[in-house]
């Protein structure tokens, strides 16, 4: 009997580890159900299409960054500078538009500024060999400083109205409405996820992160792959900045504050291992969705704002711990309880 129980728990454990995405999706649905039940009073505010639209728009900028961050983490790296790059992308684009540069060109230059940050990160990490944590911490601070200096803490305003329309309005096709940021998010996530699963060059990140020496010996240009992930992340962060600016019709120097922690948490919840070699974009997106849903739910339920951090932090730890639990730990725990 006991042997069967052990096999059962082992089996469940293996399932949880092997099918992370399904698990997170189930958790999201569970959480939704939970929030739905917990709503006091008669009116349902949580499970409405409008609320879900809000959730989707709210996570749309983080989602772009999570795509890049997942690649970076799978390849064994780390990028703390995404929040600052978001601000940079927004500021560069908006400043250019204000002085009359056509919108598409302004956006292109904004994205390029993100690529530049990525190039710098990639260079320092691969060619000079500084630890990614320290490097991106440095670029995070420097880029944020550049943003402050560039606009002297005055948010960029006076943007052409076309800009706001393009990146934010609903697109109506009879009764179907989608916000553009949500569309951009979905397209990016789906395309990126599929590419990571099937595109040969991208899959190299799994080799690089799984076993760097071996990847090198197999002839993979480890430095090129790593730099690539940082550049992609930089561009996507800048793109998030552009979308963000359009939504707020302004660009400020403190946009994207703390975004890096949210995004990294989402990727880790989604199955990315900080030691590299594992993770999927779909998982990271679902992780972000989970965080977004929980934040939204807590708002609706009126959870004390001071509690929010505790709850979100606990979820992150829980997600990572589930990976590590094995049968022996459970036994030790039960034994300890008995004592």
């Amino acid at each position, binding site marked *: 009997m006991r042997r069967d129980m052990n096999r059962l728990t082992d089996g469940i454990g293996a399932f949880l580890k092997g099918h992370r995405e399904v698990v997170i999706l189930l958790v999201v649905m569970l959480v939704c159900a939970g929030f739905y039940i917990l709503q006091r009073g008669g009116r349902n505010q949580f499970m409405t299409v409008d609320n879900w639209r*809000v959730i989707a728009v709210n996570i749309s900028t983080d989602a772009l960054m999570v795509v890049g961050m997942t690649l970076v983490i799978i390849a064994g790296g780390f990028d703390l500078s995404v929040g600052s790059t978001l601000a940079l992308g927004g500021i560069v684009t908006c400043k250019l538009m204000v002085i009359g540069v056509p919108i598409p060109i302004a956006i292109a230059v904004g994205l390029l500024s993100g690529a530049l940050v990525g190039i710098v990160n990639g260079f320092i990490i691969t060619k000079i060999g500084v630890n990614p944590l320290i490097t991106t911490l440095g670029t995070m601070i420097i880029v944020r400083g550049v943003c402050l200096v560039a606009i002297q803490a005055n948010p960029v305003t006076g943007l052409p109205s076309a800009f706001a329309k393009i990146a934010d309005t609903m697109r109506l096709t009879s009764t179907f409405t989608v916000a553009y940021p949500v569309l951009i998010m979905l397209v990016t996530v789906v395309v990126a996820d599929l590419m990571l699963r099937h595109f040969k060059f991208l899959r190299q990140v799994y080799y690089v992160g799984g076993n760097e020496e071996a990847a090198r010996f197999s002839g993979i240009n480890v430095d090129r792959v790593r730099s690539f992930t940082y550049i992609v992340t930089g561009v996507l962060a800048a793109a998030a900045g552009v979308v963000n600016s359009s*939504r707020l019709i302004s660009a400020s*120097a403190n946009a994207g504050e703390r975004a890096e922690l949210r995004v990294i948490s989402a990727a880790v919840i989604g199955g990315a291992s900080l030691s590299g070699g594992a993770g999927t974009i779909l998982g990271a997106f679902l992780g972000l969705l989970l965080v977004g849903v929980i934040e939204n739910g807590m708002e609706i339920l009126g959870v004390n704002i001071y509690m929010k951090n505790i709850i979100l932090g606990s979820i992150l730890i829980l997600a990572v711990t589930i990976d590590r639990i094995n049968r022996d730990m459970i036994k030790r725990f039960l034994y300890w309880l008995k004592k």
Partner: protein
Amino acid sequence: MSKALNIILAIATVVFAVLYLTARSATHKEPSAPVQPVTPAAEEEYVFIAVSVGNAYWIDARDGVEDAAKALGVKGTFTGPQGSDVKQQVDIMETAITRGAKGIIVVPAEPEGVVPSINRAIDAGIPVITVDTDSPNSKRYTFIGTGNYAAGLIGGDLLAQEISGRGEVALLMIPGQWNLEERKRGYRDAVAKYPDIKIVAVGNDRAEEGQAAAEAKSILQAHPNLAGFGCVDAAGGAGAAVAVGDAGKGGTVKIIAMDRNDATLDLIKKGLIQASLAQRSYTMAYLAMQMLYDLNRDRIKMVADWRGAKTCPLPTLVDTGTVVITPENVNYFYH
């Protein structure tokens, strides 16, 4: 086996997406319909969205919201982001709009970023009042606040008087935060009237007393002849006092602080801080709640149908002024 699961996942996502894309919302509102109080009063929710929510400064505003909610018999929600990222405020506002809040009070992290959301709220029939910091380009009905610039002017004049019109001064703030930049501007303009006073440094106190103290210490070391500190946020005063006290210059180097947290009040009593500028944050919040409540019930009958006339009966600007806390009245301000 895992192929089957991937298919399930794909189907679930597609179903989800379709559900999302189709159908009108259950809470879809026509813009011109009046807000009927069909919901029981206890479910009438007013949302106060602050900024840097962990800061002790907001205790007053939170109390104001809660007391007003109790007095009026409605639900008051105090919320806001941890930092000062306007995007997060907007996220919270959107959630509030969708869940049918009956009124929104917001302290914009920046004047422009909140404009689209405030306008969306107004268009959806939810009245919006800005508090403490304004968003003049939005469709908000009312701004209740001190006028950060005006506060800075008063502070600058006070500081000038304390140092008898001559000497070097330093300012402490969090760079980049909109309302503080406005106060700094006020200090600068006020001090500009005194040709013998020079602002030699503007320090970053990172909204925390310890950091403020460290920053103030460096400034004192760099400028040994410093005559005074002007602090435009709550953390600056206590920090500057620590630095000044450690340097043995307590009472000689003058400090004008901001806000009324208990630490600052103690320091005023001790004489390390000469005065503190307090805002009527409690009043701002309470008043805003009251105004929205009355507006929703059409009690301010400037015209019979203000919505039809497209003129809101609420005042556009309410100046709650600045309170100067000195050793004389300090005891009254303890929480």
